[in-house]
């Protein structure tokens, strides 16, 4: 199983990489860890003329903590986050999410930037970053732009990236009060792609609260009614289940409706994430 032939470049700077990725009349792709891209090239579901290796660009590796936010460079690997090499100002949420992605060998090379750039509907980081209201910075031919992760992902495997764009990293706002979080996913075996991913984030006792769900539709969604139920610790699980049902009905209508099994599975998974949050 081999990829179709392609040209390979390893530019020394982000600017050179951006120019190479924007080359005219050429199908290009950036490669960082390659843990999704290489199998897709080998299976020939992705065909490129030019592969631009951005994995050694130091400008994409910075990790910085400020009082207001945490900056995670796009090339930060899942394993680095799992091992606590990134300051986790979210009470361990990032480490927990990272440790459940695929297998260790994949986590050693796969990057947070690559995960979001691919925008697989069953990926963990888009869900987590939407729950934490993260933004990402993208450098391209027209300079630098900043977008919310939730706006960046348009559809399954579809983002606002265009030729020449490179994700620099993610800016995650610091919680106003110690973060209470929950994380749950449904997967056939540990490391397999998930059928449902839920991340719950509540700042302090009274919020704000967010609940994000992935693998249910083409892109991560924020469940507003469910999040409102989490403000104040008094909601019963029945009230929460009702709110989840409202959110699922709002987001999945008509031809996009979920079948009864999917509704039960996602609801159970979200309730598990909320129990996980309440148990902390």
């Amino acid at each position, binding site marked *: *199983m*081999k*990829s*179709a*032939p*392609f*040209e*390979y470049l*390893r530019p020394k700077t982000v600017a050179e990489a951006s120019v190479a990725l924007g080359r005219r009349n050429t199908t290009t792709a950036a*490669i960082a860890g*390659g*843990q999704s891209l*290489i*199998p897709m*090239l*080998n*299976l020939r579901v992705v065909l490129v003329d030019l*592969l631009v*290796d951005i*994995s050694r660009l130091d400008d994409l590796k910075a990790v910085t903590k400020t009082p207001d936010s945490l900056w995670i460079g796009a090339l930060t690997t899942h*394993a680095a986050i799992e091992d606590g090499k990134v300051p986790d100002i979210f009470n361990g949420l990032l480490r927990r999410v990272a440790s459940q992605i*695929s*297998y*260790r*060998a*994949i986590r*050693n*090379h796969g990057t947070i930037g690559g995960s979001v750039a691919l925008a697989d509907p069953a990926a963990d980081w888009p869900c987590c970053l939407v729950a934490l209201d993260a933004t990402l910075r993208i450098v391209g031919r027209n300079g630098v732009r900043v977008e919310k992760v939730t706006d960046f992902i348009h559809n399954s495997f579809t983002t606002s990236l265009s030729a020449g764009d490179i994700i620099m990293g993610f800016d995650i706002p610091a919680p106003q009060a110690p973060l209470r979080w929950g994380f749950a996913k449904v997967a056939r*075996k*540990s*490391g397999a792609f998930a059928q449902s991913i839920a991340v719950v984030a509540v700042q302090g006792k009274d919020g704000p609260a967010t609940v994000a769900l992935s693998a249910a539709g083409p892109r991560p969604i924020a469940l507003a009614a469910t999040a409102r139920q989490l403000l104040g610790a008094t909601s019963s699980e029945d009230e929460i289940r009702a709110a989840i049902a409202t959110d699922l009905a709002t987001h999945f209508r008509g031809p996009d409706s979920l079948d009864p099994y999917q509704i039960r599975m996602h609801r159970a998974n979200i309730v598990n994430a909320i129990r996980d949050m309440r148990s902390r």
Partner: protein
Amino acid sequence: MSAVTIELNGVKVAEEVEPRLSLADFLRERCALTATHIGCEHGACGACSVMVDGVLTRSCLTLAAMCDGRSVLTLEGLRSDPTTDLLRRHFHQSHALQCGFCTPGMLIAARDILLRHQRPNDPMVRHELSGQICRCTGYANIIKAIVAAGEEMAGTLAATAAHANP
């Protein structure tokens, strides 16, 4: 073609490779190192596991061109590695292989587990090993071998420490 220089099992190797050549094919076809097995070729089975710059890596999900300037360690390079030696003995004692196809990847992954976790227990080994597929053994004996090797390693460490600080 892409020029690569790789430190392969401690020896510098310089080659010209096609950019699409995987590290797994590079090892087997260009370097005749066939301990690295090729199973699924899309990262699901772990048979092709090697170490790149000291971290566990799927050689089928790595391009040889991307390894330029890196160090690669295969099972052939671990002949005199004490952790691999210990694991090999416990795999033998616990009958942790049948056809043996997955074994090189299992040994590389097991060594990585023992180097990152002291005395890993059964559930931890199961979780860590979820990326390695074996179609014969049902995993029970592989897990038994790794747990036993971890216990022997921790026991030896404790004995050495006691000897050093009586």
